């Protein structure tokens, strides 16, 4: 099956796909947000009077919520507009709508905002120049504290032959989905409808229900085509403002960010400082210590997901008899931390891999062999006590190492080759349901989400249904429905689509077969489907029936409906090892070994990626072309994190590079076409043994590039990105 079978190719290549930014309704107003002028302060007054005095302008602020919302208030913990503390620059303080965008922008500009500026905390290390001490968790800046340990760590370090201790720093990176956030909202009676570009229509519905204080049944989310998500379109962002304005105006309202605002308001990965230490005896790791300071921006207490989630990635996929990890989520005056394709995991893998490479060199063991000797294999347990199931990472490393040796033997002077590992676990999200409808001539998959372009919905789910029911792809159609009609699913994120929703499709397919078998009075195992002419035909030994002939009168217009479910799957952490905080429960282990060949300019430090290869544990590649495309895309995004991407803030919380000129994602000129190899046979919990693939390919990239830079030049760079200047500094050229 070639990628050409994706059913969205035609509509997208013809420019006819409607994205969020394209949505338009008759009579709609255009909206703009009123941003906070400071990164931190106490809000004195937001005077909407001057804006409302302009012709045709509708304005809403904190004072209007009591009249606009049916219960007079939304989520007390997460007010739509702040009433007291302003937590980051550009935080929306009010919203306006007008007949044209220019008028809306002008109206936003005349709103009088009075804020008493307060001291802004921007740089992590100014808050904690030394590490947070024993009372660190009580600091008002700390909103999350996680701590776990196991075994006699102190003893392991005391009796070690080698102790390697290092500090790493990672940068803030943005998703850069090329389509900015955009939506059009309509409110009629108690029905709050929003057409929006989202990875999770049901997630947005739940969010809106809480934020606006209205029942979920009153909120309808219609997903458009999504111009890239990468985690940035998982939760609601603009929808509450647009809905409030639509309510106030009595007309549809369009709210879209321009690209500068996209950067300034985006919830994404923020900087971190990581200290790692490893104790070695007899060439074996005997103890690890990891400490993490993570900038979580203006995240609210209790809502940080990243700190505890990151710790496991910092330890890497390695057996460690004793360990202690401690992480602090630091609240700063930036937009809240938000998910970015494998949130913060590529940065963690960079730290874990660069560090273990350093340890191996200090100990005097080949870095790849050292890693292989400590790698988790099936049957091992993670430091937090979770059992490791089928896991192809060791097999991937073996093949990557062979290729790396070959490349190194071929490499010209100035080139270097490095290997990086990364692991991941497929999320199940909050579970969900699949609904299949079999008509006389086609199978429909009824869905709320369109996917984000990766093909996980359009190809992945279709391929699962193809395989489960034995129907060709051209008879399987995904039908997109609003949240009012679609079955619930928690969304396209966490590499969960094929793995989790795919399982529900298999279950629904089984239900279809069982239903057909019942109607034909044959055994389920004997039922097979085929296409003959226009008709879908069901075969069983000695029986052949068209689906048309099996439909009951009430099904004639629609077809046979079957559903399947999937559930959130817990995987117990050994709680005896947890001192405080919550950690991420890994479920279905996957990973990859990547090989990078780079050249390093020994005079300027400039790095160029010459060749790249990925050995990716996929369980089973349900649709190889789509799987390959996921890996290729993840690698390019990872190369950006490795080499050029870095959001920069001024000391007063202003984003210094909020545009695509100075926030540099890779262009076609910087990304080699990679060699992609699937490592199959280590089966996951997804359909047919598939594992999630949306996020894993990005994870090992910075690690592989850093290893290659070190191999080429000797530069052991401990900060991301590996800009030419950082490499030059590490090489002591400056």
């Amino acid at each position, binding site marked *: 099956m070639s990628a050409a079978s994706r059913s969205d190719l035609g509509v997208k290549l013809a420019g006819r796909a409607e994205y969020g930014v394209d949505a338009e309704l008759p009579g709609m107003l255009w909206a703009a947000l009123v941003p906070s002028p400071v990164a931190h302060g106490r809000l004195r007054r937001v005077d909407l009077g001057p804006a409302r005095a302009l012709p045709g302008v509708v304005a809403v602020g904190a004072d209007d919520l009591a009249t606009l919302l049916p219960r007079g208030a939304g989520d007390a913990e997460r007010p739509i507009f702040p009433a007291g503390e302003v937590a980051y620059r550009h935080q929306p303080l009010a919203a306006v709508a007008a007949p*044209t*965008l220019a008028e809306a*922008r002008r109206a*936003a500009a005349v709103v009088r905002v009075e804020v008493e500026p307060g001291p802004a905390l921007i740089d992590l290390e100014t808050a904690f120049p030394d590490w947070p001490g024993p009372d660190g968790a009580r600091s008002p800046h700390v909103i999350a504290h996680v701590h776990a340990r196991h075994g006699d760590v102190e003893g392991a370090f005391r009796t070690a032959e080698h102790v390697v201790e290092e500090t790493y720093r990672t940068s803030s990176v943005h998703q850069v989905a090329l389509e900015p956030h955009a939506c059009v909202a309509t409110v009629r009676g108690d029905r709050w409808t929003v057409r929006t570009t989202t990875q999770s229509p049901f997630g947005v519905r739940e969010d809106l229900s809480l934020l606006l204080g209205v029942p979920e049944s009153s909120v309808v989310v219609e997903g458009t085509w999504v111009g890239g998500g990468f985690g940035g379109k998982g939760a609601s962002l603009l929808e509450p403002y647009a809905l409030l304005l639509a309510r106030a105006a009595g007309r549809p309202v369009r709210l879209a960010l321009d690209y500068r605002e996209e950067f300034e308001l985006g919830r994404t990965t923020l900087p971190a400082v990581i200290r790692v230490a490893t104790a070695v005896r007899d060439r074996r790791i005997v103890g690890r210590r990891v400490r993490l300071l993570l900038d979580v921006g203006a995240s609210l207490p209790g809502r940080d997901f990243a700190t505890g989630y990151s710790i496991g990635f910092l330890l890497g996929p390695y057996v460690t008899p004793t360990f202690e990890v401690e992480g602090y989520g630091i609240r700063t005056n930036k937009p809240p931390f938000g998910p970015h394709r494998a949130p913060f995991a590529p940065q963690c893998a960079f730290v874990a891999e660069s560090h273990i490479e350093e340890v191996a060199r200090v100990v005097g063991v080949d870095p790849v062999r050292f890693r292989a000797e400590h790698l988790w294999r099936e049957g091992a347990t993670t430091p937090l006590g979770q059992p490791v199931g089928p896991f192809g990472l060791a097999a991937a490393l073996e093949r990557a190492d062979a290729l790396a040796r070959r490349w190194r033997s071929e490499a010209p002077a100035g080139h270097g080759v490095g290997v990086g590992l990364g692991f991941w676990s497929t999320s199940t999200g909050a579970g969900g349901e699949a609904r299949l409808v079999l008509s006389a001539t086609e199978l429909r998959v009824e869905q709320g989400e369109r996917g984000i372009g990766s093909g996980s919905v359009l190809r992945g789910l279709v391929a699962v249904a193809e395989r489960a029911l034995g129907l060709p792809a051209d008879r399987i159609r995904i039908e997109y429905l609003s949240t009012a009609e679609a079955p619930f699913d928690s969304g396209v994120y966490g590499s969960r689509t094929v793995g989790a929703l795919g399982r529900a499709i298999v279950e629904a397919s089984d239900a279809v077969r069982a239903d057909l078998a019942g109607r034909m009075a044959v055994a389920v195992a004997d039922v097979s489907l085929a296409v003959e002419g226009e008709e879908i035909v069901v075969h069983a030994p000695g029986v052949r029936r068209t689906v048309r002939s099996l439909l009951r009168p009430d099904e004639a217009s629609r077809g046979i409906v079957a559903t399947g479910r999937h559930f959130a799957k817990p995987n117990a952490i050994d709680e005896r090892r947890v001192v405080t905080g919550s950690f991420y429960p890994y479920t279905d282990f996957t990973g990859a070994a990547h090989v990078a060949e780079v050249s390093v300019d020994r005079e300027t430090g400039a790095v160029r990626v010459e060749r790249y290869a990925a050995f990716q544990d996929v369980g089973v590649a349900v649709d190889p072309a789509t799987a390959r495309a996921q890996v290729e895309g993840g690698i390019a995004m990872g190369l950006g994190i490795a080499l050029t991407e870095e959001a920069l803030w001024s000391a007063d919380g202003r984003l210094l590079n909020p545009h695509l000129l100075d926030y540099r994602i890779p262009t076609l000129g910087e990304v080699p076409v990679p060699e992609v190899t699937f490592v199959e046979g280590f089966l996951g919990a997804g359909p047919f043994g598939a594992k999630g693939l949306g996020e894993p390919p990005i994870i090992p990239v910075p690690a592989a590039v850093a290893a290659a830079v070190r191999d080429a030049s000797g530069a052991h760079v401990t900060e991301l990105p590996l800009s030419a200047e950082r490499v030059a500094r590490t090489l002591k050229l400056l």
Partner: protein
Amino acid sequence: MEGPHAPRAVPGFELVAPASVEEAIAALRAADDGGATAIAGGTDLLLDLDDGRLAPRRVVSLRRLPWRTLDWLDGALTVGATLPLRSLEDDREVRRRLPGLWQAVHAVGSVALRHRATLGGNLGRSAPASDLIPMLLALDAEVDLVGPRGERRVPVDDFVRASRRTALLPGELIRSVRVPEPRPSAYLWQRVRPANDISQIAVAVAFSPGRRHWSIAVAGMPPRPALLPDVARDLGDGAPSDAALTAAAARASRAVPITGDQRASEEYRRRLVGTLLTRAVRAVPFEGGRPL
């Protein structure tokens, strides 16, 4: 009337497109001081108009003026102010006789941008990060101006005053840019991202076969790209010796008034100046002491 979608919070402007040079000058003069600005390709100007950094009441389009020209005469190249950069890049003689200029033009933005961006606009806007100004400096290029008081010719070095500041007088327009002679030349730059970025440092070098002297210009530091005559003298009157080149690179790294910013620190820029200068000079082909 206003479109439903004009994104700016700033007031709009009137666009006029005069059919003659005289009318264009008059249109620029007729607006209040600072109230009018000329537009050629507009690829840089429109960014300032969108952000409100510039808010002219009138924008005077040069599109109807017959300035999309490229002429070689007695070895000198004259480029009309409104010729798209892509046309300059596509000229085989430019690539052969002024390789550094070709490299500098190719370094500007993308193909689609170069279809509209112009040499006149680049000079007139005097962007601090211009890739073209350093090369024009090293080629001893001159700007032909036309204005209310007639025509004049100004060396690029005198024309470019500072970031966004030029020697243009009220009502005056850039008509063309003149490069006096073909020169073996090279333009090298370093960027954080090789494509579509602003140079951390760029070095333009050219050798005049007739006058047997080098010209060196550096860009990437405020307030504007600058010629380095002392450094050029270090290189002598032909293919420089390794010692001369080392001396020149060292002098350049010391002498240039460099500052640091978010793109590069001062010390890194100093390192780049020397390295890129050395490489650029070596990229200029010589054989037996004579340029090829």
